[in-house]
């Protein structure tokens, strides 16, 4: 793979944070996911992290949306490991307000389950946390009722996945995944 110029367009928008909705799927509901290019065969740097072919869900399955409190959510990609063996820990931390039974049930159902998350960032790029081979796991979930009226009631949840690359960018439209696969 050849090296490439890495530029940044002057004046382009780069709003921080993630959007107020992200999407999730149980790994067992996914039929297939494309494989990212490998450094040995890739022709562009972007192809190492861009997933341009859509995920395929099993018949009767779809991905689901999940609300997250605005400006309380964060995608993080952290290089870890020793020299010549480094990889990435990709995580998504978000806050869900209140103590809604459906969301609490989601926590219960995913505490020991493999999932994949699609997290749209505010600059329009959708980051993928987890895959079929390296799924995301719920790492922490901490609920508080708050103590005083000015406190906050809600749960802060973190999902984490390990990968060879920073969280990939998923470019196909999500609309097809939001309808039940036939």
């Amino acid at each position: 793979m050849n090296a490439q110029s890495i530029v940044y367009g002057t004046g382009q928008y780069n709003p921080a944070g993630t959007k107020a909705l992200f999407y999730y799927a149980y790994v067992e509901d996914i039929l297939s996911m494309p494989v990212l290019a490998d450094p040995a065969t890739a022709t562009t740097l972007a192809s190492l992290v861009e997933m341009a072919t859509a995920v395929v869900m099993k018949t009767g399955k779809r991905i689901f949306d999940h609300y997250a409190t605005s400006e309380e959510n964060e995608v993080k990609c952290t290089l870890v490991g020793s020299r010549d063996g480094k990889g990435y820990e990709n995580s998504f931390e978000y806050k869900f307000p209140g103590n809604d039974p459906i969301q609490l049930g989601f926590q219960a159902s995913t505490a020991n389950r493999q999932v994949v998350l699609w997290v749209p960032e505010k600059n329009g790029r959708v980051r993928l946390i987890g895959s079929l081979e390296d799924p995301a796991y719920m790492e922490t979930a901490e609920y508080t009722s708050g103590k005083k009226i000015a406190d906050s009631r809600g749960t802060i949840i973190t999902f984490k996945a390990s990968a060879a690359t920073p969280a990939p960018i998923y470019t196909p439209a999500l609309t097809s995944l939001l309808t039940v696969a036939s």
Partner: protein
Amino acid sequence: MKLNPDVSAKYNLVGVTPGKYQFNGFGIIDLTKIDLAEADGLVKLGFPHLVEKKKTRQN
């Protein structure tokens, strides 16, 4: 990218285009590199993306 000609002669590819994917329960498979024996094996295991073509009656 295309399927091996022997594979495409026997099977239709359904739901995905030729390429390299993670398949749930089957691992990572490059569909452009599997031969007919591997395709037959996958189908026997219930691989949903390869569907045998209907044989046409010959006079």
